[in-house]
């Protein structure tokens, strides 16, 4: 197989070939490292590539598989980590001047779990600074670019992870999501990104943005690949105060179950009333829902609280907690932040304690409404982004469109939500939908996403990056 074909090999297919010894982890890793060298200068998706360690891990995986000691579906599969995920002995910068020399002593739990599953760590990916802000040109490293059009942004904050996976530089990557930062780059880059239930994936060793809203999530090109990755990283963790002591479901055993007879709510209010979407996005969402209907799903319109109010509640909590984390550095080293990051954290100085508590009381109200709504539906379909990704250098348009999204409600609610590609705009940029369900019901989201993926071809498209 060519490097390009190896680059776009799914985890499912690569894993089969590795298990059958038709493909070596060494050959796969070498091909991806060559692709990163050839393609990433256009995209800047990696901040650091650890080729030597990757090759050592690949050789160890090859030896184990050859010796009959295959550990599972991720054994020998390369991956990338957003650079706010601690890696022992390897620089973890949060894409910031402030931590540019930070070398953690211990792996984050999610990094340790991928290593334990036999994955091959290729390197660390670009992010918006400290997983906040936006694409910035006033940081020590450039922002990642969108492989579908490198003049456009790839979403964020897990920008490098989205770009690298979409460009066939890694079949899977870790992102983090506090206000939508797994699902935004997934939406912008045409890949699959899951923000699992709050507490489902350990946050230990991941630099915090907002303690009560931070989630860690898998980013892949296909739905089944995503389920396999979540399977490897989910689970209780004593290192994480928020970790849920809830049994981990088998995410793939029912994934081919289809949607016939499932009850699906279509939350069109978000993109038709609250934040009217770009016409291509609106048409794409309607077409996606039609596909699910034609597969036998019972689709009904549903309504929920206004997006602006949900987003405000999310932001009061997020910015309050982020300001608490960053205020000492903001006082002593404000010049070392990107302007976009300072702009987004600083409002935290002007919330009162009662404002923060009120936002948490508001969250209680929304949780009650959401849990009641979900008694009637298996999943909800809604928009992720309201617009396709715009030019990365158009700061006013980036500012305008970044807030036009429907992801923050599900950080607030802690509910699992997945972004999945549903087509392309007339300009060739990816379109996406979200599939949402009740807490710890990720398996149902994967089942619906897979039913859609099986009868469409969006996850097989390749961006024009070689």
């Amino acid at each position, binding site marked *: 197989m060519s490097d390009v074909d190896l680059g776009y090999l799914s985890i499912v297919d690569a894993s089969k070939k590795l298990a059958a010894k038709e493909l070596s982890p060494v050959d796969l890793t070498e091909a991806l490292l060559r692709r990163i060298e050839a393609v990433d200068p256009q995209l800047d998706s990696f901040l650091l590539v650890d080729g030597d360690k990757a090759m050592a891990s690949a050789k160890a995986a090859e030896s184990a598989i050859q010796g009959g000691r295959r550990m599972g579906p991720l054994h020998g599969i390369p991956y990338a980590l957003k650079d706010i995920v601690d890696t022992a002995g390897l620089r973890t910068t949060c894409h910031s001047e402030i931590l540019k020399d930070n070398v953690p002593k211990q792996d984050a739990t999610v990094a340790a779990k991928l290593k334990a599953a036999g994955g091959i760590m290729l390197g660390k990916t670009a992010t918006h600074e400290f997983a906040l802000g936006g694409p910035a040109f006033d940081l020590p490293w450039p922002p990642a670019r969108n492989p579908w059009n490198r003049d456009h942004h790839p979403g964020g904050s897990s920008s490098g992870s989205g770009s690298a996976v979409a460009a066939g530089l890694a079949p899977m990557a870790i992102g983090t999501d506090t206000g939508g930062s797994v699902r935004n780059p997934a939406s912008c880059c045409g890949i699959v990104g899951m923000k699992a239930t709050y507490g489902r994936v350990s946050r230990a060793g991941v630099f915090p943005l907002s303690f009560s809203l931070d989630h860690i999530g898998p980013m892949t090109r296909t739905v089944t690949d995503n389920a396999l990755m979540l399977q490897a990283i989910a689970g209780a963790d004593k290192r994480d105060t928020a970790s849920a*002591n809830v049994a981990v479901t088998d995410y793939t055993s029912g994934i081919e179950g289809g949607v016939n007879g499932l009850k699906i709510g279509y939350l069109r209010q978000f993109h038709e009333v609250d934040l009217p979407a770009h016409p291509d996005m609106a048409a794409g969402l309607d077409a996606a829902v039609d596909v699910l209907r034609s597969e036998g799903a019972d689709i009904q319109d549903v309504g929920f609280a206004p997006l602006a109010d949900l987003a*405000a509640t999310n932001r009061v909590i997020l*910015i309050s907690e982020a300001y608490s984390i960053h*205020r000492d550095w903001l006082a002593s080293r404000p010049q070392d932040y990107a302007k976009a990051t300072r702009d987004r954290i600083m*409002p935290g100085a002007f919330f009162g304690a009662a404002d923060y*508590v009120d*936002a948490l009381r508001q969250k*209680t109200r929304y*949780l009650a409404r959401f849990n009641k709504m979900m008694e009637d539906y298996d999943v909800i379909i809604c928009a992720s982004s309201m617009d396709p990704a715009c030019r990365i250098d158009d700061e006013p348009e980036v500012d305008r469109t970044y807030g036009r999204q429907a992801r923050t409600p599900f950080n607030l609610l802690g509910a699992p939500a997945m972004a999945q590609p549903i087509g392309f705009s007339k300009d060739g940029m990816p379109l996406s939908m979200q599939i949402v369900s009740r807490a710890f019901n990720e398996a149902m989201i994967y089942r619906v996403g897979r039913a859609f993926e099986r009868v469409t071809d969006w996850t097989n498209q390749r961006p024009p990056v070689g």
Partner: protein
Amino acid sequence: MSDIPLPPALEAAHALDPELIEKSRAHAARLVAGLEGGYKPDEEPAHIYQAGGSQ
């Protein structure tokens, strides 16, 4: 909220960008206005480490 004075520790940030403080103050006020308000005394805040009210 919006009448909270500038914390002395943010003077360096203020010097860097004189508009930042006022923009931030106004943004904070807009966000707080997005809360419904009218919370009854027994309406408790959600635990911050909680998903779906199920844990």
